[in-house]
């Protein structure tokens, strides 16, 4: 009987805790930026890269004297676990933290619902990793994307197959996520249009480690190229290891999610010679080198696939705030549209939709390194 009291007490405590969260004191003027990425769950590795990229950007900005008018820049990172519900909760939490911009998320299925929540409060969202066309196609005014789009990546990959690798037959495998399947479908359609025979388009499930059944099919089909569209670099490595062990001789090609040092670290010899499409990052450019040295010094590991994009997204926002002199979303948007800066990943320029263009480059793994091989914009080999 006394327990009903406990229920009331628990409700009251919760009310207090939750209201307490909302009423933080405003000491000085602080630029508050949120990050959202999967910090737990199967995509924690990529999520970690995104958070670290943003942290480095803030550090670099502070070293350069910060943003005028703001005493400090604070980063609030939230975990989405690549789950739409948690992503929306994270977005609401960040709104409560009074952030004015969010860098994230990773999975398109998290980015899309959380962007709707953020849009209600006119908070700027810059995604460093969600490549689904739907992210910027919904007409949200404050949605920006620093990475490329799937519907640009697929044609680039197929163009490479047709023009450079001289592929006649193709086998496609994806792992059934919004991103990996969308891209694989895009490649399938573009390849058929380009006259490449798609022998089969098969799927594996997330969380699987055993791909032997599908790979036996690949071996029996004996394609010229084996296109691997997976959500995660480690699963990509597992795929190539098992494929090589089975004696598949096709050329392997992956996409930007498997483009990660992990692919080489785990895949070792099996990954040698594999191609990957990834937004061109000029690793010799001073901007990237600067980023790399900072990253290594602060994060104490190698940057991942999306670290540089996350860095650039955060940087772009801070630069826009600097130029606008305020965090007023309309003014920031105007400044973001005017922005043209040399980032770690590329020259960041946003178009009307909020996209920043894609400049997919095909990389090849050679001697345990990603080496630029072919540029989709110019059609030239490096």
């Amino acid at each position, binding site marked *: *009987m006394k327990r009903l009291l406990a229920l009331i007490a628990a409700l009251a405590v919760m009310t207090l805790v*939750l209201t307490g969260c909302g009423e933080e004191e405003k000491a000085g003027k602080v630029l508050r930026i949120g990050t959202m990425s999967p910090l737990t769950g199967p995509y924690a590795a990529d999520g970690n890269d995104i958070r670290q990229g943003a942290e480095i950007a803030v550090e670099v900005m502070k070293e350069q004297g910060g943003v005028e008018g703001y005493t400090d820049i604070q980063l609030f990172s939230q975990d989405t676990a690549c*789950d739409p519900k948690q992503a929306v909760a994270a977005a*609401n939490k960040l709104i*409560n933290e009074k952030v004015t911009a969010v860098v994230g998320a990773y999975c398109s299925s998290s980015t899309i619902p959380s962007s709707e929540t953020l849009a209600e409060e006119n908070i700027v969202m810059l995604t460093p990793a969600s490549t689904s066309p*739907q992210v910027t196609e919904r007409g949200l005014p404050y949605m920006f994307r620093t990475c490329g789009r799937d519907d640009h990546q697929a044609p680039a990959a197929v163009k490479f197959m047709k023009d450079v690798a001289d592929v006649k037959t193709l086998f496609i495998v994806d792992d059934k996520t*919004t991103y990996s399947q969308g891209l694989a479908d895009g490649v399938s359609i573009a390849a058929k249009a380009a006259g490449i025979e798609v022998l089969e388009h098969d799927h594996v499930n997330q969380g699987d480690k055993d791909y032997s059944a599908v790979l036996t099919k690949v071996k029996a089909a004996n394609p010229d190229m084996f296109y691997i569209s997976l959500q995660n670099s480690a699963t990509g490595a597992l795929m190539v290891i098992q494929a090589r062990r089975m004696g598949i001789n096709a050329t392997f090609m992956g996409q930007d999610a498997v483009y990660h040092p992990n692919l080489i670290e785990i895949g070792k010899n099996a990954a040698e010679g594999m191609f990957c499409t990834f937004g061109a990052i000029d690793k010799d450019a001073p901007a990237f080198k600067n980023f790399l040295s900072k990253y290594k010094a602060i994060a104490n590991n190698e940057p991942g696939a999306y670290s540089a994009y996350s860095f650039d997204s955060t940087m772009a926002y801070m630069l826009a705030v600097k130029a606008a002199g305020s965090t007023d979303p309309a003014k920031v948007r105007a400044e973001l549209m005017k922005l043209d800066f040399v980032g770690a990943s590329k020259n960041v320029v946003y178009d009307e939709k909020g996209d920043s263009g894609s400049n997919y480059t095909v990389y090849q793994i050679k001697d345990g390194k990603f080496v630029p091989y072919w540029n989709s914009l110019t059609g030239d080999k490096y």
Partner: protein
Amino acid sequence: MTTQESKKLWLSCGVGLIWFLIILWPLLGITPEGLEFGKTFKVFGYVAVGVVILMLFYQVQQAGKLNFVGTPLKATSVGIGKIYEITPRWILLGIVLALAIAFPLVTGRYAHDVSISVLIYICLGLGLNIVVGLAGLLDLGYIAFYGVGAYTYALMSLHFGLSFWLCLPIAGVTAAIAGCIIGYPTLRMRGDYLAIVTLGFGEIVRLILNNWMGLTNGPNGIMGILRPEIFGFQLNKLWMLYYVILGIAVFTILAVYRLNFSRIGRAWEAIREDETAAELMGVNTFLLKLLAYAMGATFAGFAGAFFAARMRFVGPESFSFLESAMVLAMVVLGGMGSIPGVILGVLALVALPEVFREFELYRMLVFGGVMTLMMLIRPAGIWPAKRVGRRSEEAD
């Protein structure tokens, strides 16, 4: 506590710590560059100090040295208990309801979001409570019905533009049908076989949602679902949605309460306690078990439809096994078969990870540990139902 007992306690504590060190060190200390001890001992140090402090506290408390805190506290709680006992039940429930109604007026967005989650889970928990708590059927795939409800509304809204209020009962019915489909072949099974089969069904539903491109749009999920409307006015603010789900939750609570104390509820409990005996007494166990599945699924269907309307997006990620396990955890942790118990369980398991958000990476670690700890401290749940588990109480 005698010195001998205390010695024994400290001894087992020491053995435990050494054991912990043996388990921890290989994970932290062995690297290809060589063996390393500093990091391990740092972590171990924190844990050891924490454990020793807890032990000391426990001993002091056992020795009665903390009575100066405990006694007044106890006196206050006894006093409040007396006030509670003389206050009529409806006033207390009224206070709870008033608090729930006033809640969004004094809180921010984030609080609304969390409390909407709490209310959704209350519907889910109470629904599962019918299956697990009342009828005693272990169900590890319960979240499938939630998914069916969510997709029902999503598809109805997308293809036919039907309103939320019309779809809410439809979602309940489709979920109930799904419940019967799942229930039918499983009724022959008992105990843990039921568990794995329901788990299998849950996974099948999730995989179908993820793979049937034509119907569900696969992993991309369904976007652009309409928010609920009232007289043509769209409820697009979070606090408005809060009242919608509050209404659904109150309806669920009332319905489950009525069911609990009805003939059907008693029949379910009879099945839970002794199925053979119930059958001999003329209870149609087959039909009633099916009904339990269907009723449980219906409430999950309602919750699912609301979830789709609230997120304006449904994707298969939201209906994984872990989610089923979570709802089950809420029911068992709160106390099976007891409505306030389930509500407390939901509050604990939704609020905890939110409170722990500050721990960031340690969040789920702490969560898992606390879950085990709570089960160890209160194996029958926070607020066990009076009619459940008498046998286990006797064994105390």
